[in-house]
């Protein structure tokens, strides 16, 4: 039974209770479905290795079974990793410092960490600006925030197929795939949250599946089932799913009948402000005219 809903406002897109439930369920066999997390986690480690700095104290936000904490160990002078997740079921895996925490209510004091990492977690947060502000505050000055989250083009094939199927069978469509952030929005949010030197870029991962139903099973295994509040509760009707799978196959199958699923990953890098960081000069403080520079070049 679902608990009574405490908040109802336009900002509350995701049902956090459902997010937690889906994660609890996925904890049992997460190792069978973690390939995408490991792939993106490796990309995060690559970014980290490009930075020649030590980060002794690390927060792994939404760390699930500890796949990222494991990958990150031994890099960049890391001494302690605190792994936190919304799901207590994940906390029984692996060792180390563990905390059950809600990303929307970060339970750490100011300047607790040198680095906050997060792999494919923040796309389930309702108040992303609020979470980013809290994460900046737990970082020491000149601490690094390094995160990967799903972007707007994620599961675009599935989204279109479900909408088509639902419109045909039910005369309308409800949200079945999460809304995701856009790479431009993400960069702006970092600035608004008070981070310095923010960078947001993206890449796509295409996964090939035997058929669309296999993709849907995988999403459940990953703990990534739909948790949009306005979703229809209970199971998706069997005929809708079958129709959606048929649409998916028709539009996207290759010669062997396999179908692609697109995942867009947004990578975020930003720093907690510090006086020693490079900053743009104040407007109007330039001494040389650009026109002169261009002339001299001649």
């Amino acid at each position, binding site marked *: 039974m679902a608990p009574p809903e405490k908040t109802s406002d336009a900002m509350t897109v995701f049902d956090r209770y459902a997010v937690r439930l889906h994660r609890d369920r996925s904890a049992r066999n997460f190792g069978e479905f973690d390939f995408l997390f490991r792939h993106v986690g490796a990309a995060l480690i690559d970014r980290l290795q490009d930075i020649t700095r030590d980060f002794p104290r690390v927060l792994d936000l939404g760390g699930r079974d500890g796949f990222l904490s494991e990958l990150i160990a031994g890099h960049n002078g890391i001494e302690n990793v605190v792994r936190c997740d919304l799901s207590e079921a994940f906390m029984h895996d692996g060792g180390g410092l563990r*905390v059950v925490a809600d990303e929307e*209510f970060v*339970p750490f004091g100011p300047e607790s960490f040198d680095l906050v990492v997060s792999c494919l977690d923040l796309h389930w947060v309702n108040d992303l600006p609020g979470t980013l502000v809290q994460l900046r505050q737990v970082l020491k000055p000149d601490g690094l925030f390094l995160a990967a989250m799903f972007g707007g083009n994620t599961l675009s094939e599935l989204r279109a197929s479900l909408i088509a199927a639902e419109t045909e069978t039910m005369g309308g469509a409800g949200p079945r795939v999460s809304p995701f952030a856009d790479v431009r929005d993400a960069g702006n949010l970092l600035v608004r949250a008070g981070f310095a030197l923010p960078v947001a870029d993206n890449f796509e991962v295409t996964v090939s599946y035997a058929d669309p139903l296999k993709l849907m099973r995988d999403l459940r295994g990953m703990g990534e089932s739909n948790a949009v509040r306005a979703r229809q509760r209970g199971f998706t009707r069997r005929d809708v799913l079958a129709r959606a799978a048929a649409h998916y196959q028709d539009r996207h199958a290759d010669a062997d009948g396999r179908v692609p699923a697109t995942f867009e990953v947004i990578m975020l890098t930003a720093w907690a402000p510090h006086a020693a960081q490079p900053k743009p000069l104040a407007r109007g403080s330039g001494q040389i005219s650009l026109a002169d520079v261009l002339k001299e070049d001649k």
Partner: protein
Amino acid sequence: MTAAQIDPKLLEILVCPLTKGPLKYDANAQELISEKAGLAYPIRDGIPIMLVDEARKLDGAE
């Protein structure tokens, strides 16, 4: 079998997720108490559960 203890390193950095105020560690009850929020967060198997939904309301708190 003795229950796992919370790591002192965590006690140094944890705050109440709701008020960001300090927490008092109750070793007997295995709870982290936020006076300001009137909540006691449970510690299970040495793992602090910092969720408002899982916290116990303190006596006298509304």
